[in-house]
Structure formats: C-alpha cells, structure tokens
C-alpha cells in the first residue's frame, strides 16, 4: 500500500485542519441546545466520533493482522501495530471524554450500568495488553505472529463484550441511532457527520505519519547494518 504521499498524508492533514475546528464552530454556534441535556450535549460531537474512530482503527489493526497471517509480509505487521496504536490513542480520549459527559449528564464520573463505557474499558485494557505482549517478545517471525493473533482475537472480544454487558445489565445509554434512522434534528446530524469525517481524517493522518516514521527507522537501521558490513 505504498500509495501516493499526498493521498495518505497531505489530504488528511488539510481535512483535519479544516474539519476539526469546523466541528467546534458548528457545535457551538450552529446547532441548537439539546432540550434534555443542554450544553453538555455538545461533547457528543466529539465523544462519539472519537469512539467510532477508535473502533475503526482497531478494526484496521485486526484486518492488517489477518492480512499478515495470510501474506506474511512485515508491512502488514507494521500496519497492524500502527492501527492498534492509534486505536489506543483515540481510546484514551474516549475514556477522558466519556466520564466528562457522564459527570455532566448523569452526575457521576463512571456509570457501571452503562454498556458502551464498560465494553470500551474491556477493549482498552485488552489492547493495552497487546503492547505488553509485543514488546516482551524478541523481534522476528514469532513476535509478528503472536501480535497478529492477539489483535485478531479482538474481533471476537468486541461482539462478545457487547453481548455480555447486554446480558448482564439493563439498557441505560441513550439510543440516538435507532433502526428507523437517526433520531435527531438535521443540524445535529450534519455536525456529527462533520465531526466524524474530521476524526477519521485525523486517524488516517496519524496512521500514515507513524507508518512512514517506522519505515524510515527500519530503513536507517538496515543502512547502518550494511555500512558496518553486517549485511543481513
């Protein structure tokens, strides 16, 4: 996937510079105040896109892991790692914005009855373990396979956690999207979509910049080795 640099870096860079501030502007000056939650509802335009983006990054990590197990090329291993890494970065933001919203609208920092919050915590802990696993194995084939398998297991863990929490608890989270469609006014939906697009471009940007950095580091290491005459 060594695509055009502009496509993977410049475009998402411009998009995130435009869209993220635009979301802030739209959220505060364009959309009306939520009847039920008031001002605190504004965090919705960030918290939810960040959470979805984080799931998408994890999904990218898992997909690349599957591709690695199939193709066995280091590039896919690197993509899988970078996907999980940016998922964790967005995940940290989710775990900051979630409790903020919870405090404002429910009066508590953490609600153990809330499904999404708990599933997310499970998932976050799980992907944090990914880094422990990866960095306690020596570099090589074994580390790449183990990381890939672990990242793939998340594909089972996500639906299982949702189901488990659903089996265990009552439905508390406000369901904004229902099977009939999004139950919110047009201006809310548009702002949400802009926020989503902004976060997604930011994710693509982070992933491609980190990938480029890692590739460069690997290349430098290789050059250093050959300069010392230890050709691998």
């Amino acid at each position, binding site marked *: 996937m060594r695509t055009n640099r502009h496509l993977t870096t410049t475009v998402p860079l411009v998009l995130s510079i435009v869209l993220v501030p635009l979301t802030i502007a739209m959220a505060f000056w364009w959309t009306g105040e939520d009847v039920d939650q008031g001002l605190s509802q504004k965090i919705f335009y960030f918290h939810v896109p960040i959470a979805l983006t984080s799931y998408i990054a994890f999904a990218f990590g898992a997909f690349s892991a599957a591709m690695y*197990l199939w193709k066995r090329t280091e590039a896919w291993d690197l993509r899988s790692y970078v996907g999980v890494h940016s998922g964790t970065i967005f995940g940290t933001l989710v775990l900051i914005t979630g409790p903020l919203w919870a405090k404002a609208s429910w009066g508590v920092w953490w609600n153990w009855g809330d499904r999404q919050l708990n599933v997310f915590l*499970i*998932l976050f*802990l*799980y992907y944090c*373990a990914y880094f*422990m*696993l990866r960095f*306690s*194995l*020596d570099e090589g*084939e*074994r580390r790449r*396979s*183990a990381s*890939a*398998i*672990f990242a*793939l*297991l998340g*594909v*089972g*863990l996500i*639906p*299982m*956690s949702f*189901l*488990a*929490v659903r*089996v*265990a608890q009552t439905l508390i989270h406000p369901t904004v999207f229902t099977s009939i469609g999004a139950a919110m006014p047009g201006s809310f939906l548009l702002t949400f979509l802009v926020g989503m697009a902004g976060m997604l471009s930011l994710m693509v940007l982070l992933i491609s910049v980190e990938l480029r950095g890692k590739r460069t580091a690997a290349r430098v290491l290789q050059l250093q080795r050959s300069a010392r005459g230890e050709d691998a």
Partner: protein
Amino acid sequence: MIGAALTIARVKFVLEIRRREVIFAMLLFLAATIVIVRVALSGDTGAGTRAAAGMLWAAVVFTAVLGLLRTFAAEHEGGVIDALLLAPIDRASIWLGTALAQFGFLTAIELVAVPVWWALFFQGGGPSVGTVVIALLLANVGIALVGTLSAALALGARTRDVLLPVLVLPLLLPVVLGGVTATYGAFGEEVGGLRPLGFLALYDLVFLALAWGTSEHLLGD
C-alpha cells in the same frame, strides 16, 4: 487430529498425577481466596448472595490464571515443545490437547472448591445447583480455550509470568459477566431465562473458531 489431542491431554494428566504441581496449588489458591473473601465480607451482612456469586467467579478466573502459568512449563523447560512441533501432527491438536487438560484441571478443582463455597456462604437456600454447574462447565471450556491460546502466545516472552494475566483477564471478562448473571439467575433473579448460559456457549464457540483458525500460526517456528 482429535486422537493426537487426546494423547497430549492424557500425558498432561499422567504427569500431573505423578508430580502434583498444578492441581494442588490451584485448589489451595481457590480455597484460600474463597475463605479470605468470606472473612473480608463477614462484617457486611447485607452483601448477601450477589457478593457470593461475584466472588465465586472472580476466584475461579484467578485460579485458572494460576494454572495457566504452568501450562506449557514442562514443554518449555524440557524442550518437549520442539519435539511436539516436529511430530507429524496438526498444530491445532497440540493446542487442543493442552486446552482439554486445562479444562480437566479446572473441573477437578471446582468439584472440591464449589461445595466449600456453598457451605461457607449458604447454610440453606442456596442457588439452584443445575444452573451453577452448567454455567461453570461452559465457562471452563471458554477459560481453557482462551487461556491456552494466550499461554501459547506468551510462550517465549521475557515477562511471561506477568504477561499472561494481563493478556488473559480482559479476554475472560465476558465469561465473568455471563457466569455471574447465570448465578444470579440460579438464585431466582430475573435474568432472561437461559440467556446467560446461551451466551457462555456462544463465547466458547466463537473463541473455538478463532483459535482453530489461527492455531497454525500459534506456536511459532
């Protein structure tokens, strides 16, 4: 492939009966955990059945992790793993055989420890036995599958003993949630009938499929 898995499981059992390394440690750990929590909760008479259910599942999962730490120990120390990998058997059968042995160990320990839990927490009017037993058996399958898989992943890691609990506990969280809910149901709470048990069975199937699919890459080259 099933035959090879059964042989591996049998070898593990025979070794365990001779050495008595894992089962006794796990049994004592489980019993000690139950007693400690009972003592710790004794001041709070209101904690009741929900606390009892919760602690049973927490104790089972922690005990399982203790056992998992020794899963591949013999293979790793004696270099048996290399021999197994060279043997003309499917890689999946190594993992499956080990998981079978783990399932056996866990079930054997629970046979002793769960009655202790029962006696300590309920003098009369405990939960319905059938539901708890089925929930435990289903959970044991999931714990053995996921645990053996994680143990194989952590094999060869520098910090294996610390790493394994970190890997396996988030993966087992759904099992704890499902198991606790099933136990509430066994106490007569409304939990949607057989849904928690069905969930545990589904968990087993999902991770069986995932582990089977990746087992070829599991033990390294």
